[in-house]
C-alpha cells in the first residue's frame, strides 16, 4: 500500500498521466470536432491503426520523420475520407460504416504490414524512426512542475497545442461557426448557402487529421513500432471523453486527462493484491460514472438529434 501511495504522489505518476492521456487527448479532440459537425463517427479506432502503421512504414522506408508523419496522416485521413464519403454522400448508416471501418483497420493494417515487411504481428523488423522527447527550456528547471511537464514527447506537446487550436477553430473561426451550425441545424446552414455535406466532410477530415496524430504518437512516440490492434479501444475512449466534455473543448480535454489518470492509476494499483480483472475495469468504470454525472448537460446538445437520424 505504501509503495502505491508513494507512486501516486510522485512526479513520475503525473508525468505518466500526460503520457497515457496523449492519444486520448488527440482522439477526444477529433471526436469533438466531428461531433460539433453533427456526425456520429465511431471509426477512430480504424483511423488510428492506419495512421500508426503509415507512420512506421513511411519513416522506415524514407528514413525521414516528416515522410513518416505524412504517410501516417495520409492513411489515417483516407479512412475518415471513406467514412465521410459513404456516410455523407452515399447516406450509409454511420454506425455500420464505423464498425466496418474498424474491422478494416484491424485486419487491413496487418495485411498491409505483411505485404510490406512480411511480418504480421509487429513492425519491429522495420527500422522506423521515432519522434523524440524534449525538455522545455525554462519550465524544466522549475521543481515538481518541471518534472511533470518537461521531457515529454514532442507529440504530447502537440496534443496540448491541439487543444488550443481546436478551441480556436471551433469558437473563433468562420469554419468553426459553420461546423457548429451544420451540426445543430443543417437546414439553416443550407438556407444561407453553406454546403452542408462539404462542411461535415471538412469536419471529418479535421477529425481524421487529429486522430491520425494520435495514431502516429502511438507508433512513433509512445512506442517505436506498430503492433497489431495496438489501439486497444483508445478510439472508443476518446469518443467517451468528448461526450463527457459535452462537446466543449476544455471539458473534453479535462475528460481525456481524467481517463488518462484512471488508466495510470489502474496500472499502479495492479500491485495491490486485487484480482487483475478489477484493475482492468477501472478506466471503463470511471468513464461510466463520469457519463452519469455529466449526463444532464447533454440534454442541450445536438448529439441526440444525430442519433435520431441514424
Amino acid at each position, binding site marked *: 500500500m505504501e509503495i502505491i501511495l508513494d507512486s501516486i504522489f510522485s512526479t513520475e505518476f503525473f508525468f505518466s498521466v500526460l503520457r497515457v492521456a496523449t492519444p486520448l487527448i488527440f482522439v477526444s479532440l477529433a471526436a469533438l470536432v466531428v461531433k460539433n459537425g453533427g456526425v456520429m463517427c465511431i471509426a477512430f479506432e480504424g483511423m488510428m491503426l492506419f495512421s500508426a502503421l503509415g507512420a512506421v512504414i513511411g519513416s522506415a522506408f524514407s528514413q525521414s520523420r516528416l515522410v513518416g508523419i505524412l504517410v501516417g496522416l495520409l492513411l489515417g485521413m483516407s479512412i475518415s475520407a471513406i467514412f465521410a464519403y459513404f456516410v455523407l454522400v452515399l447516406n450509409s448508416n454511420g454506425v455500420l460504416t464505423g464498425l466496418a471501418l474498424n474491422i478494416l483497420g484491424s485486419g487491413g493494417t496487418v495485411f498491409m504490414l505483411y505485404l510490406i515487411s512480411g511480418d504480421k504481428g509487429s513492425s519491429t523488423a522495420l527500422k522506423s524512426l521515432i519522434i523524440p522527447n524534449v525538455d522545455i527550456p525554462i519550465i524544466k528547471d522549475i521543481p515538481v512542475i518541471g518534472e511533470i511537464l518537461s521531457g515529454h514527447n514532442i507529440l504530447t506537446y502537440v496534443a496540448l497545442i491541439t487543444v488550443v487550436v481546436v478551441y480556436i477553430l471551433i469558437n473563433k473561426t468562420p469554419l468553426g461557426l459553420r461546423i457548429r451550425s451544420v451540426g445543430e441545424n443543417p437546414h439553416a*446552414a443550407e438556407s444561407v*448557402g453553406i454546403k452542408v455535406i462539404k462542411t461535415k466532410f471538412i469536419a471529418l477530415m479535421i477529425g481524421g487529421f487529429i486522430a491520425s496524430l494520435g495514431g502516429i504518437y502511438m507508433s512513433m512516440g509512445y512506442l517505436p513500432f506498430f503492433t497489431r490492434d495496438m489501439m486497444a479501444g483508445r478510439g472508443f475512449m476518446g469518443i467517451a471523453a468528448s461526450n463527457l466534455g459535452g462537446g466543449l473543448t476544455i471539458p473534453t480535454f479535462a475528460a481525456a486527462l481524467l481517463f488518462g489518470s484512471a488508466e495510470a492509476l489502474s496500472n499502479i494499483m495492479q500491485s495491490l493484491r486485487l484480482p487483475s480483472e478489477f484493475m482492468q475495469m477501472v478506466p471503463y468504470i470511471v468513464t461510466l460514472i463520469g457519463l452519469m454525472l455529466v449526463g444532464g448537460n447533454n440534454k442541450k446538445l445536438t448529439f441526440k438529434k444525430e442519433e435520431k437520424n441514424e
Partner: protein
Amino acid sequence: MNKVIDNTEYILRMENITKIYGNGFMANKNVNLRVKKGEIHALIGENGAGKSTLMKVLFGQEQPEEGKIFYKGEEIKITNPLVALAHGIGMVHQHFMLVPSLTVAENMVLGIEPKNKGFFNYQEAVRLTEEVSKKYNLPIDPRAKVKDLPVGYKQRVEILKILLRGVEVLILDEPTAVLTPQETEELFVQLRELKKQGYTIIFISHKLNEIKALCDNLTVLRNGRVTGTAKVADLTEQDISRLMVGRDVMLTIDKEEAKPKKTVLKVRNLTYKNSDNKAIVNNVSFSIREGEILGIAGVEGNGQREISSLITGLIENQSGEIKLFDEDITNISIRKIREKGVAHISEDRMTYGTVADASVEENIISDRYYKDDYNKYGLLDKKKIAELSNELIKEYRVKCDSKDAEIRTLSGGNIQKVVAAREFTSNPKLIIANQPTRGIDVGASEFIRKKLVSLRDEGAAILLISADLTEVITVSDSLLVMSEGKIVAYFEDTKNLTEETVGEYMLGIKKQTAEEIGGVCYE
C-alpha cells in the same frame, strides 16, 4: 406559348417551371410566375399546392426539371442558395432556419462571416447586425442567443438575415403562421416600409385577410399548376378562396345555439411555474360543460400551451385541481387521461401529433392500438386496423397515396386531418383543440371547424385554443381571454363579440373584475 408581354416591367419571371421530386411527385407543372419590381406579390394555394417548392426552386434549393428563370430581364441559373443570394434573391422559410444555440449576430452572418486575419470577427458581426437593424428599424439584441428569443423576434432575425445579404427580392413563406396578430401587424408595417424602399416581396399565406391587407397581385397554385393571377384589389376574400380551392368556402361557421349539459371539466387554481420559477399559468380556474365550446383567446405564449399540456398530462401538475367528471386527473398517466375520454390536438403537429416516418395508418391507431378491438391472438388485428384507417381517410378526406403512405409525404393540411381523424373518433368527452387550423388552407380549416361543431352537438365538451381571433370568436360558444398566464376576461356568449373588444383585453387595455371572470366557474 405566352403572348407578347412587356417583360421589362417584371423584375422576375419564372417560366414553365416543372419540378418532380425523387418519389415521382410532380410538385410544379409548367408554372409561370411574374413579379413586378416593388410589389408585394402573393402566392397562394392549398396545402401541398407547390408554393414552397416553387420558391425553393427560385432560391436554388431545388433544381427544376424544366423551365427558365429570368431576373431583371436576363436568364439566370440558380444552382444553389449562394447564387440566389448573390443575385439579390433571399428567402425566409416556412420553418425557422436558425441555429438556436448561436447568438443573433452569429446567425446573421452565417455563410458571410466577417473576418479579421482569418479569424471570425464577432465584433464586426455585432456591428453589422446593429447597423442593418437600425437601417430597417427592426430592433434586435445582437448578442442574445436565438433560442432565448420569442417567435416574433426569430422572424425578425430571419428577415434581417436576408436584408443583410443585400437582397432586393424577399421571399416570405408563411411568415405569419406563427405570429400573433400584433406581431403580424408589426411585420406588415415593416414590409410596407420595405416596399416603399423599392424592395420586391413574394408573400405566401393562407390567411386571406392578410393577402387583402398587404398584397398587390396574386398568383394562385392548385395541384402544382397556376390557376390564375390577378390584382388583389379586384377580388373579395370569397373570390380568392374559390380560386384556391376550386369551390365556394364558408368563411364563417354556421352553428346552432349550444345546449350545454353536465359539467365535464373543472379546473381550479391551476398554477404552473417554469424552471426560472416564473408563473406561466397563474391561478387559472374554469369549467366546461357537455355540448359547449369554450374558447381561449390570447397572444401566443401566455400560458395556453401549458394549460392544454397540464390537462392532457403532458407536463406534471404543480398546484391546483383538474377534475374530469368530478374525478381528479392531475398526475395520472396520459393513457388513463385519454381513456377517460380526453382528446388532444396539439399545437405542434409534427412533434406531438404525428410520426413523420410512420404510415398514415400507424398514426391513426396510436391512441387505441392496445385495445382488445384491434388485437387478435395477441397480435394487432391487421384487417380491423386497415378498415378503420381506410374509413377515416375517406371520412376526413385525407389526400394520400394510401393508408401506408408515410406522413411526411403528406402536406401540412392533410397531416392535420390525420390528427383530427384520430382525436375526433376516440369517443371524446373532452377535446382540447390547440391551434387546430394553424397553417392550414381555408378548405381544410373549414372542414375541421365544422367537425368541432358537430362533435359539440353530439355532446362533447371542447376547449378551443387559438391565436386566430376570427376563428376563436366564431367557433366558440363562450370565450376566455388570457394574458400573462391569467384569465383577464370571460364572455359567456360570443355572439356579439368583436375582435376589437377581445383585442383590448388581450393587450391589457381593458380588464374585467374577478367576479365577471368567476362566471366561468360552475360546478
